[in-house]
């Protein structure tokens, strides 16, 4: 596990339940790593699990692994895979991160890459203890320029599923990835810029139309690449707005903004805009939203 934050911990603790899987975790938080080594990695909430695994802040200490799962924030992908690539010389490396562009960064250092999209979510409560907020599915598939074999992807998907994280292996995982990036890029920054929860964004008709404007640009960029979305992001947006789902949820980007942490906007709206430029699809709203979020980040230091 490369990056053992909330999402990384969900995978690590669940996979550690399996007798035939040995889990190592690399993370930069000394306190989190020490707590995991002393007491195991505990999940509570949607599932109560404690996983026994080996955690380290020293990338050089990682042994050779069959699989790497990268779960850092997108801005740390390049440095994290550069530090850990030695462990995956014969293995395959999978991204379960937000946004688009992570696989490209991983492929700079790894020969066999798996494109992944995951919906489970949580947050770190204290070192060694993660709250599991939402269960959800994970979709894995080959990263086309440097693909891992379908057989190896199926091995990883099977292990995740048996460990309690339902995961499917598909030949083209771009449809799932783009559905999620379009969803995130349309809802996260609107929440972050306005300060409103997901449900309140969706119940304001004018703001909901702005979300749809962002979705439509993302769909056009996906279509220009020949990607068929596995479902309509609009359905996911409306589903999440229901009171029993995520009405009161503050998007992770809003949480980042409130804590004055750098956001993943460059991999969400910035990613859609970059692929749009490469395929000749204009993305003026995504460009505008990214500029505003970058401006908001700049306001913390000016």
């Amino acid at each position, binding site marked *: 596990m490369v990056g053992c934050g909330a999402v990384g911990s969900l995978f690590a603790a669940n996979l550690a339940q399996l007798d035939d899987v040995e889990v190592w975790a690399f993370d930069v938080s000394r306190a989190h790593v020490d707590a995991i080594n002393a007491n195991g990695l505990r999940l509570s909430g949607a599932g109560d699990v404690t996983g026994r695994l080996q955690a380290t802040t020293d990338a050089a200490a990682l042994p050779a692994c069959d699989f790497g799962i990268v779960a850092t924030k997108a801005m740390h992908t390049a440095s994290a895979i550069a530090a850990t690539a030695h462990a995956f010389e014969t293995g395959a490396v999978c991204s379960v991160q937000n946004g688009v562009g992570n696989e490209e960064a991983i492929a700079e250092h790894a020969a066999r890459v798996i494109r992944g999209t995951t919906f489970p979510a949580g947050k770190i409560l204290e070192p060694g203890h993660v709250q599991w907020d939402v269960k959800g599915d994970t979709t894995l598939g080959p990263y086309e320029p440097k693909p891992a074999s379908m057989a190896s992807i199926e091995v990883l998907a099977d292990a995740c599923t048996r460990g309690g994280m339902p995961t499917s292996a598909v030949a083209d995982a771009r449809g799932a990835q783009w559905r999620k990036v379009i969803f995130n890029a349309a809802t996260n920054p*609107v929440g972050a*810029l*306005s*300060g*409103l929860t997901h449900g*309140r*964004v969706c119940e*304001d008709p*004018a*703001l909901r*139309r*702005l979300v749809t*404007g962002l979705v439509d640009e993302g769909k056009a960029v996906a279509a220009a690449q020949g990607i068929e979305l596995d479902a309509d992001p609009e359905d996911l947006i409306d589903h999440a707005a229901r009171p029993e789902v995520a009405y009161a949820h503050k998007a992770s980007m809003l949480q980042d903004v409130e804590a004055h942490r750098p956001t993943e906007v*460059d991999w969400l709206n*910035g990613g859609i805009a970059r692929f749009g430029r490469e395929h000749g699809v204009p993305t*003026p*709203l995504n*460009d*505008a*939203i*990214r*500029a*505003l979020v*970058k*401006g*908001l980040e*700049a*306001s913390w230091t*000016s």
Partner: protein
Amino acid sequence: MEPRVCVVGAGVIGSLYAGHLAQVAAVSVLTRRPEHAEALVRDGLRISGKSDLVSRLAAADNAADLPEADLVILATKATEVEAAAERLAGRMTDATVMTIQNGLGAEELVARHGDWPLVSAVTFMSGFRHADNHVEYELDTETWMGPYRSSFETVQGIERLLHESGLRARAFPDLRPAQWSKLIFNATVNTVAAVTDLPHVAAFAAIGADTDLGLLVRDLMDEGKRVASAAGVELHEDPWEMNVHAVQRGETEAAEGHYAHVPSMLEDIRSGRRTEVDFITGSLVREADRLGVDVPLHRAMYRLVRAREAA
């Protein structure tokens, strides 16, 4: 005979007019709060900064308690114009009413409540409120005026009066070119500041990298210019040039120890107040809709500012 001026709304801008004009005219001020009027009557109004003066004037929180006037300067926020015009209805019947609000549409709101001759104006002055009876005069820039339901001669008369009082002013036969330049500038700079929490700093004019905020600022201004063009308005000044000059001036002043300029819409958001976005960006978008011009970016900014208000 000494001219009589009534200033409605004693915020920063209203106070700057009242304090200066009281040097050459009989000035009365209509305030919202009674204690504000009491402080002005008791202590006078002090202006510091670019001017240094203390003015005696009449003040009340009820229009019926104020003397008649030849000129009414309506200096409330755009959001309070309607209420202010209602308070004036049936009063000041000999007066010309001058509106100085941001955005478009204040003149029409006032026209519904009386048949006063009207003068359109925009001002670029700025200041800082130290107390109810003390305002610091920061930017001593011009007030631009033009006839709305009045003659150019009337406007020139007000221009002379403002000059005599020590303020800078300019009469235009048609204010729309200047009004629209300021509208596009404000619709862009104010909303971007309100959404990003950035004061009007150099980033607003940066266009070097593809994530630079200046690109969005320029795109917003280009949208605004297309609306002005469809409305048949030839702009007095290019809003992008206004933006570049303002941040350059801001940089110089920052180097001299002054703070970066915080646009009023950002001040409103920071204070949890309702903004003037309906009158600024809202009026631009309404004009665009009327004229069939597509303004997706201004529409997005409008929605985001309204959302920040809601939050």
